[in-house]
């Protein structure tokens, strides 16, 4: 069956069984390999993507529920040449070790920062409660997300106008 999906702003037509988990379609049909397969059971968070602004576990979501909805994956947050604020912050603070959990972490953080640019540590921990990291980089992940919030706020502040003093 043919299903239309909007991923990172572009429309895609995929031919898949409607019960196929979104994660499989992203990786196998659209070659978006950022989202990772960890458990396939909704327990680790490495497959997290954002759907209409909310973090969801793509291994648990059959594509039939996603017709016409806005899907964002880690590839939608920036490119190698132009990393987005979250990616930049994770690089700056060297928040990844093996990196397997990081796309999921970033997508959960992305959903959080969209609604709250200055989350407290407690709020970050809560939002990322469903994301596991086997390497144990949690403290750096926390720091990177705080940093990303700062970068986003700085970017959204109006540029100081030139040519006017004071």
């Amino acid at each position, binding site marked *: 069956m043919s299903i239309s999906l909007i991923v990172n702003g572009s429309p895609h037509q995929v031919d898949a069984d409607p019960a196929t988990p979104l994660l499989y379609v992203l990786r196998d049909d659209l070659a978006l390999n950022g989202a990772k397969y960890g458990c396939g059971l909704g327990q680790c968070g490495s497959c997290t993507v954002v759907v209409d602004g909310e973090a969801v576990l793509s291994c648990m979501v059959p594509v039939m*529920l996603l017709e016409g909805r806005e899907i964002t994956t880690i590839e939608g947050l920036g490119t190698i040449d132009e990393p987005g604020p979250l990616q930049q912050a994770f690089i700056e603070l060297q928040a990844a070790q093996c990196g397997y959990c990081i796309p999921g972490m970033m997508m959960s953080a992305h959903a959080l920062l969209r609604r709250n640019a200055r989350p407290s540590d407690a709020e970050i921990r809560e939002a990322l409660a469903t994301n596991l990291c086997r390497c144990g980089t949690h403290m750096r992940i926390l720091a990177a997300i705080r940093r990303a919030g700062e970068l986003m706020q700085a970017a959204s502040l109006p540029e100081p106008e030139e040519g006017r003093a004071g």
Partner: protein
Amino acid sequence: MWAFRVVIVFAAAIILAAGAFFFLAWRSEIPEEAAAAEAAFAPELVAKGAQLAALGNCIACHTVPGKPAFSGGLALPTPFGTIYSTNITPDRETGIGGWSEEAFQRAMNEGVDREGDHLYPAFPYDHFTRVSAEDNRALYAFLMTRAAVKAEAPQNDLQFPLTYRPLLAAWKLAFFDRGALEPDTSQSEAWTRGRYLVEGLGHCGACHTPRNAFGAEDRDQYFGGGEAEGWQAYAINKDSKAPIPWDEQSLAFYLRNGWHEFHGVSRGPMAEVTGNLSGLPDSDIMAIATYITSIMGDPTPERGQRAAQLRETFEGDYLEQAADSQSSPVSASGGSPGEAIYLAACASCHEGQRRQPFGGLNFNLSTAVNAPNPQNIVNVVLFGLPPADGEASAVMPAFRHLLSDQQVADVLAYMRERFSEEQPWAGLVELIANTRSGAHKVTIRPSDGIERAPHNVGAEEG
């Protein structure tokens, strides 16, 4: 002349009745005890009190999640308005720092505060009146040795005339049976102990028994199922809908561990209860199970037969024989929309290979699917089961961002039809919409019981 006499008699009657009522309603103030909060208690007594406070689940109502433990101020919605729990830390001004043990004993026993005012039965003194003086002493020792926190609870927001506390004397007259339970010598020691724990501090009936128009537990439907914090507290009498009936062993295991292979995990407010019970010795847990299963009674022969079949299917190593669901996603061809969603989104865990408590419960074993009211499944589908902090726990993803009200309703209708012999649920879409919007307020807790809704990561222990 005649009319005049009637008026006099009438007035006299009113004055007499008012006098009698006043006499009945009036309680003296117990003087403040300045040194109460500084008193020293034996450590064993305090430790015993801690256990009892956990059994009584005092922290659940007397703490705003995220705020210091026992400092009160939690809003308790009732059909009559909102009541705010009190500060029971030993702060002299805003807590119970000036309460003597006598005042504490009286509050537990009669539902009257130190000043002599009647307490609203949101404080379950209809149960706590069963608690022995000795246990109250330990509770008092525990509470008086907590950190004193200055915190004033907001004013209750109740409809007139309920703001007038002496009226509560009338409520007590009608519904309050004061004092210890009569011993029943025909019963075992374990049963007697279980009854003491369940009927007293445990106050299980406060949630598991429906309430009448006056907010009192309806004794005719004792343990017939009630409500707590937006969740259904299931019937735990003969009307229990558990497909495999509870027995002493399974109930004790569930209360001890927060899950059972034939019943699933405790969640919602019950997660906090099973979490708190971890402080109790095995013998007390077993006693509670003995007493509650005696209330449930033996299942009917048909129910027993069905249960035997289920046991055979789900006992032992059935999971090892099941196909590997992880590598082969099911196909959602044909069937109703609800079936298609169930097979694609739910079955991989709920008919998968992981054992309880980490795998999804097979719905053939689910009380929720058989319950008269679908609220609990709605809550779990929309909000999921958040993971506990710092320990392995059951977890389920929330589906509220993925499924519309109609889609949730479709899934539930399919599950009801496939896994239960009960009538279809009515009004699903509306109930789901109200739960999603918050019109029906639900408390979300992970399986370690710490409240997590919506911006809270647990109460600090004081």
